[in-house]
């Protein structure tokens, strides 16, 4: 993301690259578009940018906008969108375990990996508990509509914590019962084929190439 925003060609190229990768990964554009909505607050922020700035100004419909502000705003949108699309690409094509394995090879501390492993394992379990509690509340005629219902929701959150904490204790007990001494079995490194590696590197390599060439042309 070290490419200046004035380098339009490069950005168009980046988009093309990512969209091709999305296409290759056989993801639905609709899914990707929906998941990109997370970006919206920052897009709004970027839209405010043109109102602040220094130097050259232009008038649009009688409103004074700063040129460098417009550029900065566009830059944020472009880079943010690219970042999000990349992250969506990563998260949709790579399973959680592959990402954890990758992190392990990147020398992320094993304890962090273990915590993440537990988090991924139990997210579904705890979410199911939360959903069942919500249904149980709704079944007794409760609907949270405003601040006056926060007490009930806080109580549910408290109950959820107690359940999660106690599950943590039970999980630890069952680990100890099977000889756990603080070390988790190594997640076995799956051999990556050369083809996978080539494919994996193609995106960043192409992107760098684009950045350099368009700068040379521009």
């Amino acid at each position: 993301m070290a490419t200046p925003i004035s380098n339009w060609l490069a950005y168009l190229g980046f988009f093309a690259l990512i969209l091709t990768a999305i296409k290759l990964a056989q993801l639905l554009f609709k899914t990707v578009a929906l998941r990109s909505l997370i970006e919206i607050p920052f897009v709004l922020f970027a839209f405010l940018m043109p109102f602040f700035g220094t130097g050259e100004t232009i008038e649009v419909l009688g409103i004074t906008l700063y040129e460098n502000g417009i550029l900065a705003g566009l830059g944020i949108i472009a880079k943010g969108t690219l970042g999000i699309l990349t992250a969506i690409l990563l998260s949709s094509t790579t399973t959680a375990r592959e990402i954890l394995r990758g992190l392990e090879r990147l020398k992320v501390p094993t304890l962090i990996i273990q915590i993440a492993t537990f988090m991924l394992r139990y997210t579904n379990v705890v979410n199911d508990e939360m959903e069942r509690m919500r249904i149980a509340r709704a079944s007794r005629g409760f609907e949270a509509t405003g601040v006056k219902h926060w007490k009930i929701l806080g109580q549910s959150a408290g109950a959820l914590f107690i359940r999660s904490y106690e599950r943590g204790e039970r999980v630890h007990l069952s680990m100890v019962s099977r000889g756990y001494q603080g070390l988790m079995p190594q997640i076995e490194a799956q051999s990556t084929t050369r083809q996978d590696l080539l494919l994996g590197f193609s995106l960043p390599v192409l992107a760098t190439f684009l950045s350099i060439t368009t700068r040379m042309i521009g």
Partner: protein
Amino acid sequence: MADKSLEVKELAFAYPDGHQALYGVNLELSRGERVALLGPNGAGKTTLVMHLNGILPTMQGSVKVAGQLVDAKDKVGLLKIRHKVGIVFQDPDDQLFMPTVGEDVAFGPYNAGLRGAELETAVREALQLVGMYEFIDRPPHHLSFGQRRRVAVATVLAMKPEILVMDEPSSNLDPASRRELAEIVRSLDITLLMVTHDLPFAYELCERSVILSGGVIVADENTADILRNSSLLAKHRLELPKGFAL
């Protein structure tokens, strides 16, 4: 129509992911009847229950509780329905989240608008019905599993529902708690739909049973007749435990 507590007609439902769970369910419960809903895992039992009070919206067919149509779009009507259908969930911990037993039992009637002495009476009566009144100020968390299940029943009874729906009420209970629960249920003058795998428990409590399998009702008869029909049971992954005789 008021003599029918529940009328389910041609109810069909598919989840957003495309998985169809119900293929036209027909079921009627007269007021005061106790009916067991049997069926293998994945048969659609939970999906059916979630329709009875509009947690899942009706896609096709209809559900009526005490003559009133369950309609997820009618927010006011739905709230009334939810007070008429009391669901006791399988895991009492899903249902008990307030700091004390009393507050938990008060939750439903409070949502229905009860206050003051009226609310207190509703709570007291419900707890007395399940024999847990002395625990009113205790945190549910510190009760035994069997006691929590009874409190869960009280939380629902306090709403004075038209129909009581219980999901696996006997699961995880020790034999004595199981019998005590059976006695409590038998003492209630209420329409009951009981979802269960525990066929002896169904036999003990319900004169009539239905089998839901593959998203349709495949049998609807006298419980004894159903339990004697071992080929019917086997076909739907049901069986009596060894040593059990009618």
